[in-house]
């Protein structure tokens, strides 16, 4: 018999409605799984002491026949996002002891849909850089190889989902912080269109680039979660509306040059991406090489905006808590002093131009695919906790443009997962999820489980 902790969200929701499972049983199974594995993964930093009481309330709603779509479904939340009554430290000693007064908007939306909050998940300090071994919470570990990082900053979210602790977790993404850990850990990450999900109640890194979104075990679950997180009424097409559309007839641009020409790109990644393009072709999509605008320009505009806004957000905390910052984060904040308001204004002008350039390049296509990261997850030994180390990714351009992107597992390099981005136009979450779902079902990447 399948452990309820391994039920997909649709499977669990059906079992709950048919009375074959209670929310208390489902949440208990998740808590048991966390107890079995979290000592190795360090994905959860705090458990919700009221999780079982919340499950009982969900059971009462189910019994009354008034259950919302996610009633009784366990969800975990990156510790950058507030959950009322739970610790909210953003992974930093600076905010040690802080308890959130209220739910972030995205959490409140999920609660309104009946979700049960299991607890808080590890994050890189203030979502900025990591891993840092000198912080109060140990860094989350990659379920596929515990000696490797998860990527970040939604490190605990990816570790928890890929490690089978929970099917759905919330994360944030300012330069790739949902997508890169999803790729490194072998789960699905969905960065929505800019402003589709409220950022209120999430500690800001760079408000012009910040996005809140789900990490999940499958595309379907990510799409259902995004729909639950999108405040109603709204004009967005539901992400889950066309999941069974397939990939037939889709015009897909393959941005191969964007990663394959980089000497850092792993040969296994290039093979996996070429195989993915072939899979889409087999599914009836047309695959055409596309040259996207210069990646480096997006990184330039994004970096200037991000570092300037991050410094502005932290000025008062720096004044009062300087010694409590981790060294890599403080160095990153220091970078921001190198740019002034005029530089940021010009970066914002470049952001607008680059968005137009990207949309022009994508004009002949419904979607574009490219790699999420250039390598699998690095080992912890590559990080000394003294200085910031960046891992090569291809994610920040879509924080700059605000387009929706789905990262799905695309294969392995040795024992470590790799990810592919599926990029749409603003509001096209339904189309990227349709393509991702078709790819997921045609391949076996997403059903692989780590050896825990």
């Amino acid at each position, binding site marked *: 018999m399948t452990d309820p902790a391994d039920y997909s969200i649709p499977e669990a929701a059906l079992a709950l409605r048919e009375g074959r499972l209670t929310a208390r049983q489902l949440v208990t199974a998740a808590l048991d799984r966390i107890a079995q594995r979290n000592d190795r993964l360090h994905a959860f930093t705090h458990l919700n002491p009221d999780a079982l009481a919340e499950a009982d309330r969900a059971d009462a709603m189910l019994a009354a026949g008034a259950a919302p779509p996610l009633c009784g479904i366990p969800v975990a939340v990156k510790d950058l996002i507030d959950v009322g009554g739970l610790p909210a430290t953003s992974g930093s000693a600076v905010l040690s002891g802080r308890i959130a007064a209220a739910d972030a908007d995205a959490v409140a939306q999920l609660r309104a849909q009946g979700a049960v909050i299991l607890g808080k998940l590890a994050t890189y300090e203030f979502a900025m850089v990591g891993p840092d071994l000198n912080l109060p919470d140990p860094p989350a570990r990659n379920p596929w190889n515990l000696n490797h990082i998860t990527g970040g900053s939604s490190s605990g979210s990816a570790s928890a989902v890929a490690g089978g602790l929970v099917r759905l977790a919330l994360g944030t993404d300012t330069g790739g912080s949902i997508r890169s850990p999803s790729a490194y850990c072998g789960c699905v990450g969905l960065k929505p269109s800019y402003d589709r999900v409220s950022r209120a109640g999430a500690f800001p890194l760079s408000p012009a680039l910040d996005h809140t979104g789900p990490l999940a075990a499958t595309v379907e679950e990510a799409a259902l979660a995004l729909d639950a997180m999108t405040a109603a009424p709204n004009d967005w097409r539901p992400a889950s509306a066309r999941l069974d559309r397939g990939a037939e007839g889709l015009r897909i641009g393959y941005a191969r040059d964007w990663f394959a020409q980089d000497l850092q790109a792993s040969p296994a990644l290039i093979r996996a991406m070429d195989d993915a393009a072939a899979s889409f072709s087999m599914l009836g999509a047309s695959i055409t090489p596309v040259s996207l605008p210069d990646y*480096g320009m997006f990184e330039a*505009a994004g970096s200037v905006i991000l570092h300037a806004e991050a410094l502005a957000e932290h000025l008062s905390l720096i004044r009062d808590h300087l010694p409590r910052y981790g060294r890599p984060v*403080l160095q990153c904040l220091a970078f921001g002093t190198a740019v002034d308001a005029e530089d940021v204004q010009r970066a914002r002008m470049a952001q607008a131009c680059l968005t137009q350039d990207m949309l022009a390049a994508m004009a002949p296509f419904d979607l574009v695919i490219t790699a999420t990261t250039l390598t699998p997850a690095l080992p912890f030994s590559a990080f000394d906790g003294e200085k910031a180390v960046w891992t090569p990714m291809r994610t920040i351009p879509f924080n700059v443009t605000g387009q929706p992107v789905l990262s799905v597992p695309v294969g392995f390099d040795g024992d470590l997962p790799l990810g592919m981005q599926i990029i749409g136009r603003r509001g096209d979450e339904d189309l990227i999820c349709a393509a991702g779902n078709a790819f997921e079902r045609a391949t076996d990447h997403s059903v692989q489980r780590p050896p825990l």
Partner: protein
Amino acid sequence: MTEADFRARLAALGIELDAHAFAAAFKGAQHLRAEVAKIDAYLAAKA
């Protein structure tokens, strides 16, 4: 941006770094200035 400029900017915000951290931060700051120059060239080409 010179090292002295960068040091002054940090001091104005009360950010104190030891020599090792300062060297790493200054390298990052120089990189960010190079990114600014890249943006200026991009916008000039667009104009």
